[in-house]
C-alpha cells in the first residue's frame, strides 16, 4: 500500500511538470513589463551613486512638481547618445531629473558622468536591476515622467528624442 502511494505520487509529480510545460508553451515568452501609465509608481529605496546614503523615492518625488527618472548605464551605447538631450533639458528647465544607474560598475558610471556631464539632481544605483524591473522598465535607456503624487504621466522607452524633450517641456510648463 505504501509503495503504491509512492509510485502514484511520483507519477503525479511528473504529470504536474508535464502540464506546466504544456501550458508554458502557449505563453508568450518575451518579457513584457506591466503598463504603468496613469498609475502610481511603486515606492522604492535605493543607494546613492556618490554617497552610500539611502534614498526613498517618495521623498525625492514629492518635493518637486515634476520628476523625470532616467534609467541608464555606462555600457549602454544609446544612453551615450541620449545624454546630451538630458544635459540640455537640465540646463533649460528646473525639472528634477533623477538618474537610476542600471547594472553598472561604480567606476565606469562615475567616469561616464565626468566625461559627459551630470544632468541629474540625484544619482541612484540599481546594481542588480531589481528596482528597474519593479518600475516596469524594458531595458536601458528608459525615462519615466512623474508628477508630485508619483503618478506616471509619460513613459519613454529607448533614448529620448528632441520631440520627446519638447513634449516634456510643454507638460511641465
Amino acid at each position, binding site marked *: 500500500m505504501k509503495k503504491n502511494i509512492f509510485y502514484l505520487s511520483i507519477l503525479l509529480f511528473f504529470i504536474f511538470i508535464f502540464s*506546466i510545460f504544456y501550458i508554458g508553451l502557449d505563453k508568450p515568452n518575451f518579457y513584457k513589463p506591466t503598463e504603468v501609465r496613469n498609475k502610481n509608481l511603486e515606492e522604492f529605496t535605493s543607494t546613492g551613486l556618490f554617497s552610500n546614503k539611502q534614498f526613498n523615492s517618495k521623498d525625492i518625488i514629492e518635493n518637486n512638481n515634476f520628476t523625470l527618472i532616467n534609467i541608464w548605464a555606462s555600457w549602454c551605447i544609446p544612453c551615450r547618445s541620449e545624454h546630451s538631450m538630458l544635459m540640455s533639458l537640465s540646463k533649460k528647465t528646473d525639472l528634477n531629473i533623477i538618474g537610476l544607474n542600471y547594472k553598472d560598475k561604480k567606476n*565606469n558610471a562615475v567616469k561616464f558622468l565626468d566625461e559627459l556631464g551630470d544632468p541629474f539632481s540625484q544619482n541612484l544605483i540599481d546594481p542588480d536591476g531589481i528596482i528597474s524591473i519593479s518600475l516596469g522598465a524594458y531595458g536601458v535607456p528608459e525615462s519615466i515622467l512623474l508628477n508630485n503624487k508619483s503618478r506616471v504621466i509619460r513613459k519613454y522607452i529607448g533614448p529620448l528624442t528632441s520631440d520627446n524633450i519638447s513634449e516634456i517641456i510643454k507638460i511641465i510648463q
Partner: protein
Amino acid sequence: MISSHIGYYSLILGFVISVSLLFYSIFCLKKKNQNINQNIFSLLFMQFFTVVISFISLVYSFVISDFSNATVYNNSHSTKPLFYKITGTWGNHEGSLLLWLLVLTLFILLFIIFSKKQPTKYRILSIFFQQIIILGFFLFLLLTSNPFNFLFPVPNEGLGLNPILQDPALAIHPPILYLGYVGSSIIFSASLASLIQNNINKEWATHIKKWIQISWFFLTIGILLGSIWAYYELGWGGFWFWDPVENVSLMPWLCLTALFHTVIVLEKRNLLRSWTLILSIATFTFSMIGTFLVRSGILNSVHTFANDPERGVFILIFLFSLIFLSIILFFIYQVNENNTEKNFFLISKETSILINNWFMMYFLSVVLIGTTYPIFLEVITNEKISIGPPFFNKLIIPFLIIFLIFMALGPNLKWIKDNYKNIKYSKIILFFVCILISFYIVRKTSSEILFSSILGGAALYLLFINIREFLSKKNNTSQTISHLGFGLFVLSILLNSLFSDEFSANMKIGQELIYKKEQIKFLKIKSLDKENYKSVIANFEIKDEKKNITFLYPEIRIYNQPNILTSEADIKTTVFLDKFIVINLLKGEEIFNVRYQTKPFMIWIWISVCLISIGGILGIFKKTNI
C-alpha cells in the same frame, strides 16, 4: 533539386527500417538463439547508411546553394565561404536534428559492434530501446521539421547565416556536443535493457563505463567550445553567463559526472545499483529536457532557432513518454540491492564518491531550479522574473569550498574501510599553508578577502595534492589529471574574476588615454571589402609601465546577408593575461566607443578544462586498477 529528393526518400526509408527493427527485435527476443541475428546487424547498418545519404544530400544542397530547398534558402547565401556553407548545415533547427539522428544511428551501430561479449538478449533490448528514441526523432523530423521542404518559385538568393554563427569554434561545437548528448542515449537504452535482464553488476559496469567516459569527454569538450566561442565572438568579455542554454548543457554534464563516479563504485563493490540506473536514465532525460527547453521557444535565448509550438508539443510528449516508460520499467523490474555488502563505512572511498554525488545533485538542482523556475512561476502566478548570475553564484560557490576539500581527500581513501588515523598531519598543515598563500595573493582585492582566500586555498590544496600524487609512482593518472585540472579551473576562474579590469571610453582617431598604468593610443582605422562583409579595422597601441607595446586590431564587420553589424574583439593572449579590446560605432564615423579589458589567467581556464577532459578520456585506454 535532385539531392533534396534523394535526401527525403532516404529519410523515409530510414524510418521504415526503424519501424521494422523495432518489431524484429521483439521477434528476436522470443527466440532462444545464442547469437545475435545477422539480419539485425544489416538493418542497423542500412539505417545508418540511409541517414548518411540524407545528411550528405543536405550538405550538398548547401554547398551548391540550392535555394529550392527551404532550409538552404533560410540559412545560406551564395557568397558565403565554402566552410560556412558546410557548417551552415547544422546551424539551423532542421539540419541540427538530422545531425542528431546521424549520431544516434552511428552510436547504436558502434554499440552493437563493440558489445560482442555481452549477453545477446541484453544487446537486442538495447537496440529496441534505442530504436524507440530513433523512431521518435525520425517522426519529429518528418512531421514537424523536414529539412527537405521545397520552395516554388525558386528564390535567386538565400537569407544568409547569422554572422555570429560564422565562427570556426561554433562550427564544430554542435557536432561535438551532440556526440555527448547522444552518447547518453546509449547509456539510457543500455541501462533499461540491463534492468529488464537484471544484469546490473560489475561486468555491466565495466562495459558501460567506456560509453560513459566517451559521452562525458565529448560533452565536456562541446561545452568548452561553446564557451570559447562566447568569449571570442560575443565580445562581452565573459565565458559563462548562466544563460538557459548553457545551463541546459550543464545539467546532463553534472548528472553524467555523478554517474561517472558512481559506476566505479558499482564496478568495484557492486553497490549503488539502482542509483546508477537512476543517474543513467536522468542523464539522457536532461539531454532531452535541454532539447525541449531550447527548441520549443519556451525559454528565450540565442540558441532558440524558431518558435514553433507544434514542435514544442511533440518533443514534450516524446520526452514524457520516455520518462514514464522508464519509471514504469523501473518499478516493475525493481533492483534488489545487495544486502550482504551493503555496509558503508564513514571513512572509505565509496562514501567519498557518495559525497561527490550529493554535491553534484545539489549543483544540479540549483541549475535546474534556476533555469525552470521562471516557467513555473509564470504559468502558476502569471508573474515574470529573471534569474541571473547572482543566484547561481551565491548558491554554488560557497559549497565549492567543501567540495574541493573532499575532492582532495576522497580519492586517497581505501575501499570498504579506512582509518582516520591514516590521515597525515602534513596534509592538514598543507591546507593551512595553501590558505595563507591564497590570502597573500588576494589581499589587495577589494571585497570578501576571507571568502576568496579560503576558496583559493581549497583550490590550491586540491592542485598541490594532485601534483604530489602525479609525481608519486602509484598514481591513477586519469583521475589525478582530471582532479588537478579541476583545482586549476576553480583557481583560474577565481583569479580571473578578482583581477579583471575594465575601461570604457569614447575615442577619436589619434587620441591617447591613460588608464591606471597603461597608455592606450588609437592609431588609425582601415576599411576592407571581404567576400561576404565589409570590415572596419581599428589599430590600437597599448604601452604598459615597462614600455612593452602591444598592438590590438578590433574590428567591426558589416555583413551584407543578412544585414547585421558585429563587433569582433581583438584578444592578445599571453600566459598570464589576456588583453581584450572591442569597439562599437557611435553616431557619425569619427568617434568610437572603446572597451578595453585585461583578463588574467584566461588561457588557464581553457587549459584546465582540457586537462579535465583528457583525464576522463585516458580512463578508456587503461586497465582499471583504482
